[in-house]
């Protein structure tokens, strides 16, 4: 049913439809509305679940870890500081192969404190072993949660659905919320493979000495690589069942004929698509590669669609301080070394701390890279605020 609702509400409604058994809630802007909405849903009896108001995000993750290990379908949501606080548990959950779904409402990281959107937080835990899916808009954000449970419970890898804080969470858009029956048909009940239950005693969380640890990491890495198949299958299933494309590995927009390829992920792709349309009217051929699944990283797919593109610009809302663009490095790595082509891959950092990214900013970016490749540039940097010595 189509509803004009806030992004957080959409996520909450859809998560409720997925029938989680245990929800752990801790407030942090900008995901708070999600857990508040879920609290109301549970409180009104529309969802039969245990709603645990924990005392920190660390406990939130620990509670869902415990609940999932006991065989429950679980959910929690967090952002920036909370995600970093629960980072220990994030790694633990992945190592234990528990199919937990978590919403990360992307937000900048302190210090300085900022509640506004960028993607530094989910980038900080990109190596943990979670599948990370980025939503373009509220509809996709909602849809990805349904897919996330299916992916997680098939691959036994936890899934983080990343949606830009405020931009998506607090925006009111028409979102099609499916019916409970549709979701039930799509998402069967959770069948755990390893739980703590006195009837079948298992030890979960043993420690591995050097004889065994490496193999566990290999297995996890390979599992992530193989999850590509599941992610694509689930996305295709979803399209068939609910009638719209959502999720998947990568998406392209007018990329085939493009001279300049813009690579990005998250809500900014909406703005990029607007620019591309405008530039098309002006006769410029620019295309978009939208990364939906950031982890596992769709290296092969990216190479396939970009191998003919000579001018690539990567736009990202995150940075690896002291090194440069994270996504840009990943893209640069997507091309085999042996290939000696004069390819330009430019890296632009934009939108940190919630800085608005306008169509004009993007136009500037495209025009710049048409002239020359850009090693690294902060888009829209206000140099007037920066002392000479800090430049």
């Amino acid at each position, binding site marked *: 049913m189509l509803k004009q609702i806030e992004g957080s509400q959409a996520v909450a409604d859809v998560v409720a439809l997925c029938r989680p058994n245990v929800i752990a809630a801790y407030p942090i802007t900008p995901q708070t509305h999600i857990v508040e909405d879920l609290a109301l849903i549970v409180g009104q009896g529309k969802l039969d679940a245990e709603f645990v108001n924990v005392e920190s995000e660390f406990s939130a993750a620990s509670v869902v870890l415990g609940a999932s290990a006991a065989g429950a379908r679980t959910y929690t949501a967090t952002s920036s500081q909370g995600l970093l606080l629960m980072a220990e548990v994030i790694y633990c959950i992945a*190592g*234990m*192969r*528990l199919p937990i779904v978590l919403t990360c409402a992307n937000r900048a990281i302190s210090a300085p404190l900022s509640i506004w959107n960028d993607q530094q937080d989910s980038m900080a835990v990109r190596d943990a072993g979670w599948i990370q899916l980025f939503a373009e808009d509220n509809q996709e954000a909602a849809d990805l949660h349904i897919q996330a449970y299916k992916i997680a419970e098939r691959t*036994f890898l936890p899934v983080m659905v990343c949606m830009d804080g405020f931009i998506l969470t607090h925006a009111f858009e028409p979102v099609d919320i499916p019916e409970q029956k549709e979701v039930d048909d799509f998402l069967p009940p959770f069948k755990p*493979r*390893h739980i703590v239950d006195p009837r*079948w*005693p*298992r*030890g*979960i*969380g*043993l420690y*591995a000495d050097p004889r*065994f640890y490496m*193999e*566990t990491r290999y*297995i996890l890495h390979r599992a992530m690589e193989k999850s590509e198949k599941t992610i694509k299958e689930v996305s295709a299933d979803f399209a068939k069942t609910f009638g719209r494309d959502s999720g998947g590995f990568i998406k392209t927009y007018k990329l085939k004929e493009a001279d300049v390829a813009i690579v990005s992920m998250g809500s900014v792709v909406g703005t990029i698509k607007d620019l591309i349309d405008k530039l098309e009217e002006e006769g410029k051929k620019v295309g978009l590669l939208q990364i939906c699944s950031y982890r596992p990283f769709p290296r092969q797919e990216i190479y396939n669609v970009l191998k003919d593109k000579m001018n690539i610009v990567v736009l990202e809302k995150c940075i690896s301080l002291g090194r440069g663009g994270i996504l840009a490095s990943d893209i640069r790595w997507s091309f085999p070394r042996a290939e000696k082509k004069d390819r330009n891959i430019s890296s632009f950092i934009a939108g940190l701390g919630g800085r608005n990214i306008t169509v004009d900013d993007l136009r500037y970016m495209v025009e710049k890279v048409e002239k020359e490749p850009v090693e690294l540039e902060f888009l829209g940097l206000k140099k007037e605020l920066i002392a000479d010595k800090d430049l």
Partner: protein
Amino acid sequence: MEKLPLGLALDLRKVVPYKTGSWRTLMPVNIMQTPPCTYSCPSGNDIRGFLRVLAEKQDYEEAWHVLTRTNPLPATCGRVCPHPCEEGCNRRDFDTPLAINSAERAVGDYGLEHNLKHKKFISKRKEKVAVVGSGPAGLSCAFHLAKRGFQVKIFEANSEPGGWMRYGIPSYRLPNYILKQEIDKILELGIELECNVKVGVNIPMDQLTRDYNAVFLGLGAQTGTSIKIPGEDAQNVFTGVDFLKRINSGQIVDLGKDVVVIGGGNTAMDCARVAKRLGANVSVFYRRTRVEMPAITAEIDEAMEERIMFRYHTNPVKIITDENRVVGLLCGQMELREPDASGRARPVPIEGSESVYPADTVIMATGQAVDYDGFEIQKRDDQWISTNEDLMTSMDGVFAGGDAVLGLETVTTAIGQGMRAASAIEDYIEGNMESRLAQPPVIYSKDLNTYYYTQEKRFSKEAVSIHTRLKNFREIYPSFNREDIIKEAGRCFSCGLCYNCGNCYMYCPDNAVKISPSTGKYEFDLDFCKGCGLCAKECPCHYIQMSLEK
């Protein structure tokens, strides 16, 4: 190697435990030790054994069988033994020693009341053994031989069996019917008894050595020795032995008003207390002091309670008679100097200290000797039969034990000797004089962990009032309450032997103490024991000790 499970989540039922037993340098071992009660007992009775049976199973019958494995006369010993076991009891260092003697009596009485029977080990062997004397040594030797299947015949000089127990110990200490029942039980093992036959006189010794594979001499020391003072031929002058024999045979002796008993041993005490019960004023004269008196402390105490007067430092010099009847006793005072050959202070007469004490009867309980009438046998100190360490005398195949060998000792000592002799006789007959098994080491209270015990009141036996006692010859201690005895037995520390307290079982951090499915006792799982020593430290009876890993 198994493949790694998903998320390293391991099915615990498939785990093969890691054997940490390889870590240890010390390992726990169960070492049974001899408790000091058994060590102090001349019979080597399994005191811990029968007390634990009473405490844990409340089973008097089984306790009786445990006790009578070594001691066939429990009801007797429970009345007359001076209980050196209680001196040795480790509980003495914690609160009070166990009342073992009372427990023994209760068990013995139970056996009599319920007509329990001794058990034989082996049924019939063809060898025959003769036992001379049916005192405790002879009875014990016969008992142990009969249990092993030998055919035994006892030759007793008196008209009834029992030896000194029958004719020496008065019936208020050891009632005749108790003794008779216990002796009958022993004889029920198939032992032949012939009374009124004195070996050496009625039957020559070599007939026995001819007709039997071995002979045991339990002659006792039942001849009284006098101190050789003038006037001892008068009427109413008896040796202690003679006096007691008459009384215990039912003879009536007219004692007159004042009786003087000379001597400081058990016989003297018995004579004094018998005389008192016969209505006389009794005094005991002894040339040294109470400290040097060899009688059992309890005997002296009870005699004093019974208003018997004790004169110390008093030595009789002459018996004063009138028409061959005793009228008085001339005595001199002694003073004590440095110790003499017996180890006791040497009494030296004080010049001019003599005085006369009125007396109608004088009983000289000053010494006893073996009646060697008809015997040619090597002696030690010209008094006692000399034996080697296997209790064999100078005559081959002739063994001896008891008072006749050791000098004046106790019933229990004689029983122990009889038991040793039986074992020696068996070895002799079988032709292998094997060395005796080494006894397990003795455990003393310093090695016990008494933290788990609380102080508890000791069982106390109450004698009837003095007034009642002196009226007759009945026992002065009435029967003991069986429940009280069981409670007292519960105080036993079981030194040196596990009694299933469960400390080791509960305190092992590695769960390496298991209950054996076959015996129900605790055993160590050496696959997992790390040798930390907690079990040994917390074992109250020191049964578990740590030793170096083999």
